[in-house]
């Protein structure tokens, strides 16, 4: 069950933040409101009238619009076609001849009215994410919505783009539209929300001293004046320590050395642009940056998953460029990929099989000819208890485990062989709080035994907590390497590509 008796009320002209951890049930709730999913019980009232949304069609008719976390745009269509889709202007009666000129005019009109510049003739697949998001918002606005739902809209934006979006949300609310803003970022909520509903494990939560019965207060929502730490505690269910306990690092020899690295992404656009960095044994280098600034491609290039266009990658002075992934792994590199379900585990495989996914043809688990099931099962039992993987048995398929336990399988696999370098990309994305702590401790433990660690995360808190040095990446470049003690606002500015004097000094 993703949602359990949630009540939420949105007033006209307000920005209502829906706050909760990943997987708390925010998106499920909104997809029900938008008719994509059907609730098992409960009702939806629009302007006081009960409505049943069997499909998005009904929701649109009721004046509800939604900007999805994963954009709902057809990549090979133009902006105008995408916006027209489903609400096309047509001529010729039953023939349904598209009236492109009118469609285009509507787009331009809306885009000008709300100050959201879009080019109606551009192909969506050629647009950067920020522009695609504007297209999504314009698409919703052309349908005369009264309520606009924005599902994690800032995940792909820089802090500055986020500010712009917040401004747009505010001006929309001022015209009388209601906004539901789904997020897990406290700062944004504090900045914009008129009212906040916190969701945890599918339920709304309120502070224990919350006067839920008081008039003028809708059940379940809290005021934006609630202190940040209290909101955080509500969200995760206990007082969170964002600090990771660790001793000062004792950096040793250079383990990973990247110099002048240039990597292109799938579309042939330069993703990593002349990157130099060094990771020493016994230290954690954190890479901070908004998602999509080349971190993925950088890591993939090191792992031999993506071809580098130029530059050198060295592991203990031996070149890694041009090596296969297998060779890189065998050279003593551990890799926790950023997209667990896509790259990390094979969901149809058992826990035991997943634990030897990169070692199946090595003694004692097997050789290049045959497997040794007994050794695989035995080692799996050990890892399961050592890494606290909650699974019915090591022969259960990984797909049946929770996200946190799946991630522990990946971490267990990568840390159960001698490493020189550990690369952990978004190591705790979509992982429950308990597992986060465990995984963080494992990473620090790995550092303390002398492994060089490279952590990539778009969660600044995580990078600050784990790293001994932070490299900020923006548009394919390392803008600066700073200390985790640097004020977060400064790091935030760097993530937006603004280099300050102080940052240059620390470099």
């Amino acid at each position, binding site marked *: 069950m993703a949602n359990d008796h949630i009540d939420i009320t949105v007033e006209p002209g307000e920005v209502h933040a829906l706050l909760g951890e990943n997987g708390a049930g925010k998106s499920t709730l909104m997809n029900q409101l938008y008719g994509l999913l059907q609730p098992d019980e409960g009702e939806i009232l629009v302007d006081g009238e009960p409505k049943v949304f069997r499909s998005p069609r009904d929701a649109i008719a009721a004046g509800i619009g939604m900007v999805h976390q994963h954009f709902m745009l057809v990549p090979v269509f133009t902006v105008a076609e995408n916006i027209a889709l489903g609400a096309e202007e047509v001529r010729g009666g039953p023939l349904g001849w598209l009236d492109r000129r009118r469609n285009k005019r509507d787009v331009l009109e809306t885009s000008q009215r709300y100050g959201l510049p879009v080019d109606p003739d551009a192909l969506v697949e050629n647009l950067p994410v920020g522009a695609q998001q504007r297209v999504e918002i314009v698409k919703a606005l052309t349908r005369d919505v009264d309520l606009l739902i924005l599902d994690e809209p800032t995940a792909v934006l820089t802090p500055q783009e986020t500010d712009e979006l917040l401004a747009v949300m505010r001006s929309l609310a001022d015209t009388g539209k209601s906004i539901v803003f789904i997020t897990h970022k406290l700062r944004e909520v504090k900045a914009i929300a008129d009212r906040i509903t916190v969701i945890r494990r599918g339920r709304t939560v309120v502070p224990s001293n919350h006067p839920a019965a008081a008039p003028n207060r809708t059940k379940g929502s809290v005021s934006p004046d609630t202190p940040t730490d209290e909101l955080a505690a509500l969200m995760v269910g206990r007082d969170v320590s964002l600090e990771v306990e660790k001793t000062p690092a004792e950096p040793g020899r250079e383990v990973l050395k990247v110099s002048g690295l240039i990597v292109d992404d799938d579309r042939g656009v330069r993703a990593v642009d002349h990157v130099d960095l060094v990771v020493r044994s016994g230290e954690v280098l954190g890479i901070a940056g908004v998602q999509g600034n080349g971190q993925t491609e950088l890591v993939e290039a090191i792992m031999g998953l993506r071809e580098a266009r130029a530059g050198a990658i060295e592991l203990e002075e031996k070149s890694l460029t041009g090596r296969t992934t297998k060779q890189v792994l065998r050279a003593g590199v551990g890799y926790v990929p950023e997209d667990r379900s896509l790259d990390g585990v094979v969901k149809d495989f058992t826990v035991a*099989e997943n634990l030897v*996914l990169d070692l199946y043809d090595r003694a004692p688990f097997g050789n290049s000819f045959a497997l040794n099931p007994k050794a695989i099962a035995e080692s799996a039992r050990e890892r399961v208890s050592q890494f606290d993987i909650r699974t019915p048995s090591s022969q259960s398929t990984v797909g049946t485990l929770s996200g946190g336990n799946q991630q522990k399988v990946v971490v267990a696999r990568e840390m159960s062989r001698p490493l020189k370098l550990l690369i952990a990309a978004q190591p705790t994305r979509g992982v429950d709080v308990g597992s986060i702590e465990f995984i963080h401790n494992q990473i620090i433990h790995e550092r303390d035994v002398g492994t060089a660690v490279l952590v990539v995360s778009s969660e600044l808190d995580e990078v600050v907590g784990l790293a001994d040095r932070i490299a900020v990446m923006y548009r394919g470049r390392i803008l600066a390497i700073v200390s985790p003690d640097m004020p977060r606002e400064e790091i935030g500015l760097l993530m937006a590509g603004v280099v300050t004097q102080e940052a240059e000094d620390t470099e």
Partner: protein
Amino acid sequence: MTTEAPEKKEEQKKEESFLGLFVHNLWSANTVTVTILSIFLALLIGAILIVVSDSAVLSTFSYFTARPSDALNASWDLISRAYADLFKGAIFDPAAVQAWFNGTGDWKTALNPLSETLTYAAPLVFTGLSVALAFRGGLFNIGGQGQAVIGCLTAGVAGFAIGLPAGLHLVVALAAGLIGGALWGFVPGLLKARTGAHEVITTIMLNYTATLFLGWLILQSGVQDPDRTDAVSKTIESTAGLPALPQPLRVHLGIVLAVIVTAGVAWLVNRSSFGFELRAVGANPPAAKTAGMSVGGTYIKLMVVAGGLAGLGGAVQVLGTADRLTGQVAGNIGFDGLLVALLGRNKPWGTLFAAILYGGLRAGGNLMQVDVGVSLELVTVLQALIVIFIAAPALVKTIFQLRDARTARLGASMAKGW
């Protein structure tokens, strides 16, 4: 929602008797039940086809309201005779077995139906395994037909073009079939790995290319039977033939090879390092790549092995039952192998049993055609219908109101389109 309800249910379940539980599970959408009901549904539709296509029986329906018993009796009579023949032709004919025990008939006649079944089944095992193995690696090998055709061709040519002592000649001819099929599988594997060309498209195209190539080759001098003007090759030397039981029994060593190869494929999938690789690549290619496996390399190896299996199927067909190449020598064994793999749910032993079932249908169909004049094409209809129902367990579930159960899903990983 309250949490009490499920608990209560569970208690009730525990109280149910063992027999109750057994029946409960029996009438649920589990793999065995769905398979049996699919066969039943197919036979039912087949029965309707038999009736509506028989003008004599159909005429009794013209006065159905007056005397329904005529129509029903005539229909029942025709259907039961047809399906009895299907059974007699596939497994055993009670009369023949009786005669054997009485001493009036010989054992060969009694065993002939089984012999026929296994004869038809043998090549299907290989082509079925070819498809099933490729499935496990995430590839949909529709090219079994083309690979089998090339296997027929190379095995056949090796069978008459070179002279070798018995035994060795057979091994060489089988190997030729294997290599021929493997080459024909290598092409789509390489294209998939290097250019991403979808194997469904390339293998479909290669099927017809293979058939046309065979059609051309048979007419070339050195291949064509010099005494004939039509498209028939020279006769394969007896040294290259698969040893068979005495005439008229046709069953040959091919079925034994099939069982051995099934065991081999089962080992390959579940116990070998390559099997681990191919299952990982089949289930999640990016994860396999991230774990250091070569996805492209696995695709190539997999298609070579799958092609080799289908080619071996072609070789068994040509060295076991046919004694020379013709344009139609491979029959439909490649496409039938596809059905067999689907029916066997892409498991090696399942494929073996499915092949024997289809071989039985084919053997029984022959008797049915000769005896009651119901066309052999009915077997094709039955074979296709069985797989349609198997592939859509939800359909069977709805028709029979089965309870939910875990059904072995049919190639869930392959619904990726092109």
